């Protein structure tokens, strides 16, 4: 009897492996775990896009839940998600932008053309703040809690459905 069962071992092994690999087929290959989850927003000291005289640092995120959106004028997806961001601002959520790898003129032009839901925009022409955040393409969006800790990271375009399903519940959770 035991010998018979032993003969079944390869089949069982094969089935287990099949189930495991089959699950892999339905994974999204673009999904990456964010390395910054539950970590402090990186230390920085930057000019704002709007006013070269004004400097901001990570204390910007103390005391209020903030949605930080990394955008660039060169990025078509960023333009497409602006209506959703304006909607979030209308709901009273605080948004801060990072103008990523843009010139000042292009950045300001973008805000004029597509609307400005941001309380302030951090000017990051070299993309070094983006690098600290592990940004590998715009748009990317981070939720920072009132203690300045990153709680949620969305990479890529934010659809109206993403707002309903992910962004709003997360904001609610950390509010």
């Amino acid at each position, binding site marked *: 009897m035991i010998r018979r069962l032993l003969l079944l071992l390869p089949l069982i092994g094969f089935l287990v492996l099949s189930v495991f690999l089959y699950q892999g087929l339905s994974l999204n290959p673009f999904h990456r*775990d964010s*390395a*910054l989850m539950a970590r402090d927003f990186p230390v920085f000291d930057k000019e704002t896009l709007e006013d070269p005289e004004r400097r901001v640092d990570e204390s910007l995120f103390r005391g209020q839940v903030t949605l930080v959106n990394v955008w660039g004028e060169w990025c078509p997806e960023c333009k497409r998600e602006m209506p959703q961001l304006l909607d979030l601002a209308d709901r009273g959520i605080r948004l801060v932008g990072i103008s990523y790898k843009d010139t000042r003129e292009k950045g300001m032009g973008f805000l004029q053309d597509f609307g400005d839901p941001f309380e302030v925009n951090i000017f990051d022409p070299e993309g070094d703040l983006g*690098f600290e955040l592990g940004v590998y*393409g715009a748009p990317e969006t981070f939720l920072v809690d009132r203690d300045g800790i990153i709680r949620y990271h969305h990479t890529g375009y934010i659809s109206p459905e993403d707002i309903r399903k992910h962004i709003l519940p997360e904001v609610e959770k950390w509010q």
Partner: protein
Amino acid sequence: MAVIRLTLAGLALLLMAGLAQAGAIEVREFDDPVMEQRYRSLTASMRCPTCENQAINDSDAPVSRDMRDRIYMMLQDGRADMEIRDHMVERFGDYVLYNPRLDGRTYLLWGLPGGLVVFGGILVVLVVRARRNASARALSEEERARLEALINRGRTP
């Protein structure tokens, strides 16, 4: 004549393709061949975060360029390879390493091949032992007589 013209056009195209390729990934100067070697192996061991499966030394994505710049800067700063790898993982996650680090989540991954070899070895030893025991056990008087009878029955019609 037409053939020559065509060949020349083809060569020009190839040359342009080569130039475009050279423009994509920058050439770096190193004073120290060891550092150059380290730069090569570091950039070959990290995966571009936006591309599906391309090392950062082979990718013209902007983020790969930024990562190469950072690696170059950190090497010039005299940082260790380990530090540079950790620096990248802290920002872009474990995804960037082709060879994942050994930690709580990857014990299974690193341990499984060795574990399977050990398991297979134990299995072979057990099977060999079982076989040896089986052949060593001699037939009893009774079994021998029965075997004889069976053989003879087969021979005589």
